[in-house]
């Protein structure tokens, strides 16, 4: 009897047990499908009127990459040294760039790559979404995004050579499947974007800082110049001379706050002091909306009525300072000599002066880039990090003129007179009308144009790229290895991410 009861109990227990265990099967699917509340989804976003403007703004945002090339273009060249805190160990990745002793793992190089491709990503993301939808000002917006992508790719090609290209945005897996294009193909891609953009871009924009037709044409001219396509450069740049731009009479006015976005600005990258970075995030691009290059280039001092404190990077050297002739008004606008400014003669007197100056590393301390360094009141020093509102004058009208001068002089159908007339405008603005003479023609004229580029744009970040472009780097820069230092290495990480898909640049 006991056995029967026991067996029945066992069956009952097992049946109940199995029934209980099966309860949950019915209700688990919905439970783990959690909606993201309060968040505007990608599809919902595009229903808003302002969506495409907001998306376009975010493609402009990565333009703030330019503080990097503004620094690199100077301290890697014969204009200035990296400097920084005494001891010359401050920001090691910059120190190595400045002495051309960097390697494929240099973090500053990797950041430049990331921020430029970040720009490409944002512009392509805009294009991917814009091309399939209808909205107001569609053609202009698309043209702006194409211009931006062209600019980011131009910086990529002049820093890294040929890079991967794609019409839509890159997706995971592309790094192992899309190869690096050649330098020529990359330039073709850039020109294609610019040529598509130029017809749709307006002569002027509602908001300052958005690109105009002239901006895109000037960039196209620069792109041609870098390919030594002189006639192409002339073709792109000549119309810009009749689009209402002019040189300001007083060179120094270009770099004041009032001179921002003025009659000489063809395309200017906007920076603002409205949002600061800090020690922890200044490297992360665009967390700060301020110009880090300008801020870092300032002297270490405090309490001066005109100049605000910086971190004494990017100190100009005698090679540049002494090149300015006595009549050159650009010298005082470009170079601040603290000895002269404060009326002292020795470094110790500087240190003991009211501004409590702290020398930076290296030689010529006491000499800074007047045209870019922060002014008192425009930013607040201390921990208000990287807040300089100094706009990067990416393409000035003077650049258009000097590019035209160079293109005309170096073209197969060389037109020296036109070349000289463009050069003359720039030289006369600096020295006064007819004060200095310029060479008549040929190589001397070309070299003079190059020298004027150096004097005109010192501190603005083009020097190193000009040296490479014009083949002068080897002779001008100690440690420059021909066939290697023309381009940055592809960052080591990227080579690894590509799993063999991307080769390294020559010499690295």
């Amino acid at each position, binding site marked *: 009897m006991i056995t029967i009861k026991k067996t029945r109990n066992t069956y009952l227990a097992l049946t109940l047990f199995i029934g209980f265990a099966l309860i949950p099967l019915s209700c688990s699917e919905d439970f783990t499908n959690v909606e993201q509340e309060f968040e505007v989804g990608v599809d919902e976003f595009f229903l808003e009127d302002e969506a495409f403007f907001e998306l376009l703004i*975010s493609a402009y945002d990565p333009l703030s990459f330019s503080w990097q090339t503004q620094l690199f273009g100077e301290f890697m060249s014969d204009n200035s040294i990296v400097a920084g805190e005494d001891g010359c160990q401050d920001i090691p990745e910059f120190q190595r760039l400045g002495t051309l002793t960097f390697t494929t793992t240099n973090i500053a190089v*990797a*950041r430049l790559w990331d921020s430029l491709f970040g720009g490409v990503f944002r512009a392509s993301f805009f294009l991917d979404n814009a091309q399939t939808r209808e909205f107001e000002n569609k053609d202009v917006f698309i043209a702006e995004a194409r211009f931006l992508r062209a600019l980011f790719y131009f910086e990529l090609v002049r820093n890294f050579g040929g890079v991967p290209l794609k019409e839509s945005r890159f997706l*995971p897996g592309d790094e192992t499947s899309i190869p690096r294009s050649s330098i020529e193909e990359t330039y073709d891609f850039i020109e294609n974007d610019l040529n598509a953009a130029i017809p749709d871009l307006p002569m002027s924009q509602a908001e300052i800082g958005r690109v105009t037709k002239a901006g895109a044409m000037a960039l196209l001219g620069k792109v041609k110049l870098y390919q030594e396509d002189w006639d192409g450069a002339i073709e792109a740049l000549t119309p810009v001379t009749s689009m209402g731009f002019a040189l300001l009479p007083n060179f120094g006015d270009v770099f004041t706050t009032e001179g921002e976005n003025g009659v000489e600005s063809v395309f200017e990258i906007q920076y603002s002091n409205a949002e600061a970075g800090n020690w922890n995030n200044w490297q992360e691009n665009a967390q700060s909306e301020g110009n880090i290059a300008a801020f870092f280039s300032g002297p270490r001092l405090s309490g001066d009525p005109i100049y605000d404190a910086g971190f004494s990077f990017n100190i100009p050297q005698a090679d540049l300072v002494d090149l300015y002739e006595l009549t050159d008004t650009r010298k005082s606008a470009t170079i601040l000599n603290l000895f002269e400014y404060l009326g002292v003669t020795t470094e110790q007197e500087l240190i003991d002066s009211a501004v409590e100056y702290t020398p930076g590393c290296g030689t010529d301390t006491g000499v800074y880039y007047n045209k870019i360094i922060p002014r008192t009141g425009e930013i607040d020093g201390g921990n*208000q990090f990287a807040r300089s509102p100094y706009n990067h004058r990416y393409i000035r009208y003077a650049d258009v003129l000097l590019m035209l001068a160079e293109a005309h002089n170096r073209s197969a159908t060389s037109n020296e007179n036109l070349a000289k007339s463009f050069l003359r405008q720039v030289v006369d603005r600096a020295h006064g009308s007819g004060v200095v003479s310029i060479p008549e023609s040929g190589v001397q004229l070309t070299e003079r144009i190059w020298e004027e580029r150096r004097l005109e744009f010192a501190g603005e970040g083009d020097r190193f790229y000009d040296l490479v472009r014009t083949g002068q780097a080897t002779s001008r820069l100690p440690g420059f290895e021909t066939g290697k230092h023309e381009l940055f290495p592809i960052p080591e990480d990227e080579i690894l991410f590509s799993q063999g898909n991307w080769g390294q640049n020559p010499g690295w």
Partner: protein
Amino acid sequence: MRNILFFVLIFFTQLSIAQENTVSGKTVDSRTGTPLPFVNIINKSKNTGTTSDFDGVFSIEAEKGETLEFTSIGFKTITIVVSDTATLDIQMEEDVAELESVVVIGYGSQRKKEITGAVSIVGDDVVSELQPQIATEALRGTVAGVEVSQQGGNPGAAFNINIRGISSNSNNRPDIYVDGALTDFNNINPDDIETFTVLKDAQAAIYGSTAANGVILITTKAGRRGQKPKVSYSNYYGFQQVTKKINVLNATEYALVQNEKFVNGGDPIRFPNVAALGRGTDWQEEIFNTAAVFNHSLSVRGGGDKYTYLLSGAHLEQEGAVGGDKARYQRDNVRLKSDLFFSDRFKVSTDINYLYTENGGIFANGLGSVTFNALNSEPTIPVRDQNGVLSLGSAESSNEVYNPLTQIENTFNEFSQNRFSGFLNLEYKVLDNLEVVGRLNITNQSGKQRSFTPSFFYGPGKTANVDPQENTVFEQVDTNNNYVFDYFATYSNTFFEDHDVTLTAGGSAQRFWGFGFNGVAFDIPFNSFEFAILSNGRPFSPSIEDDERPNPDNLFGRFEYANTRSSLFGRFQYGFKDRYLVSAVFRNDRSSLFAPGFESADFFGVTAGWVVSDEPFMENTGVTLLKLRGSYGELGNDKALETRQGVFNFDLQGEGEFPINGGNTIIRGAAPGSLGNPFLKWEVAKQFDVGFDLQLLDGKFNFIFDYFIKDTENQIVDVDVSGILGGGTAGAVVAPQNVGDIRNEGFEFSADYSFNIGNLEIGLGGNLTIIENEVTRVIGGEFIEQNGFRLGQAAARFQEGLPVGSFYGLQTAGIFQTQEEIDNHATYNLGATPAPGDLIFVDTNNDGVVDNDDRTYLGDPLGDFTYGLNLSLNYKGIDFSIRGFGSQGNELLRSYERDNPFVNQLDYVLGRWTGPGTSNEIPRLTTETTNNGLLSTFFVEDASYFRINNIQLGYSIPVDSFKAINLEKLRIYVLATNPFTFTEYRGYDPAAQSGNIITRGVDNGFYPAVSTYTMGLNVNF
């Protein structure tokens, strides 16, 4: 017959037959002789059962020859065969030998003897010996295979717990359940803990997706039915001190070294008059203080006929040995735990916990921390100027180095949290051998934070300077909630006498959610913490005079998340004659953390054991237990994603701001934020274990051995991806990726032995863990590298063939003594030109050039072996215990020296190279640029250590004299925690590791380990 050896204390009295088939009697506590109520009595032959009543009286139907089993928690199980006995006097003996003790194993429990997985148990004796401020410390050095390290010695600092090695690149924290409810160590009053059960292998598979890191189950103390109220009170008072100082230069040494350095660099000397400087300021001495710690803990427990209860509370208060009150920590716990027995079949348990913590916090670890400033500040600067004002950092020195006392003075942090958790457990015995359980645990935690950065001038050019009116307050409130609902049924039966089967099946639904607000405001009135709340400040920085609109980023932030998990699980346990034991576990988890198509995963585990000692051939060998064990399982880990939501989604939450229109107006754009990874898979740990348990000498000697292999695959890590994918844009969040596999392989040994010499009871114990850790695969690249050495240098790697977190840099081979040596060595391509006195870096790839390609493995923070030792002595009322733990062969990376010519230095520079033959270890000093600051062997230090973490001496006053007030126990003790550490390591704490897995061995200046000296009192009545 079950374990007859252990049931020697069964007394049969009054043998007679009262009725034909009813047996009655009384259950008694053998020690006190008082009736023991509510003992479970089962007639194994009939499968019927009953419970003894409040007075221990019972009666049960039974016939001669049938088997009765008496069980009660905390007592040995007694099995008898009914003979001609009418009234039984069952003397229940307290379970000391523990083999019969019941061990929780997740959704159920098992007798210790039957456990077939690798399970370690730590009892409350260890907790009371260590008197930890945070319960985690009780696992430090006490369990083989469990490595505990603290992220610095500041009060409330977080712990890393690694069970069987670093098995995840993102999160190695095991889940912690208290009586079945999910919680965290920081929330627990250590005095509430009865046992820790650590599930180390496939046994944990019942927890499925969260089990790969192991699982720690905590059982807390409880009242017993029929127990008179028992009151326990304990307290301790003590103080904490930093006992380790890093040897830096005094003022005279510093000045001499500086002068030499500047001369070598071609600069004028800094200190023409060295003689007047003396020893100068000892900055470490200035920041270290004696910090008070005290704790009160009170509990009352007991039970009646149909209920038990435990009410406990504790209050802990602690100051920082650096930062004093600014680094304080306070914790209050209150708890009510009760069981209600509605009938023999139906039990309801509740557990209500309240926790309050409040703490300050100083910048404790890393570049810019208080200790960093103390180590790097020049000893020639006085602490205060002639007016008694704290002095400023010097103009020459590094921008980040300034007077650490000004830093402490200007640190204002206030964190507090309230945490409520409620637990409800229903157990219903549907049939004698079928029980269903439903339990719900709900937790609500809310936190509040207020931090104030006052306007202050720390010295010329210092990055920490805050201009007038630029002071800022940050406030945050957040709340984090979860519920865990479990339901399961357990069926257990014995078939044909010898076949024991237990089936468990059920499910679990869990939801974790929370949100928070925070904001920043500027220009707090009077620059004072007192007024530092958001509404007293301005939403934007005053330095932007013409700003037309506040910056919403500064104004406030908001976050919100919700994650869910639902699971099904089942377990089959089978034992034949209690000798051959197997179990199989299955679990399916679905999680909202993964994209559709990847959200479901299956996990399993199988274990087997053979109790060799119960075989007939082992009788009379003196071996009380020999059990062979083996297990294999696949367990998951999704902790990398906790408190995140929808990482597989693409969104537009990035930052796309640009000051279009010039000036100060920033236009907010919309930008891609999360870049999404819809292909993310679960992290899976494949675990294999074999081992044995050996017990000799009637349980006085225990030995446990395990060998294991743990392969964790598909590591979920936030890694960089190619820049072409847009990760370099502001606000972009690269989704985590499955990047690689890690293998941990090792041995665990633990042993304890207790014996008596006369009245002296001696206990000895120890454990040893040997683990080899290796990255076995890296997907999409050869390694993952993380920065963290000094200013942004790459520090450590996750690289195939190396342990996780290996330091990777240049290998040194002494010092260049002459220019000739340099000329004969491979050419340097590292930046600076080498000179005599510089470090010799090895050209490891023999290409004639020393460059970044020559970087190689330099060491790692994983010890070759770790161990723990303990000794306890009892003589009459006096008890003494000492515990220690250590690690051998682990390295740390010295990274707390600022690379700047003016800062102070460690005193090893006194042995620097000053000319040929002077040193082959310490490079020359100069202000010139050198390569000596690159990560190399020079910065890798052996951090092997042995730490005495506990010495305790107690005296129990004989209570006989206090009989009148029912005093059961009165004990006073003195305790030293961490009094001695034996190490060659130069830094503060060789046992500390940071929370970042890859760079955990980089010492950026950990908050020093503190030694604590306390006096305490335990009272029970």
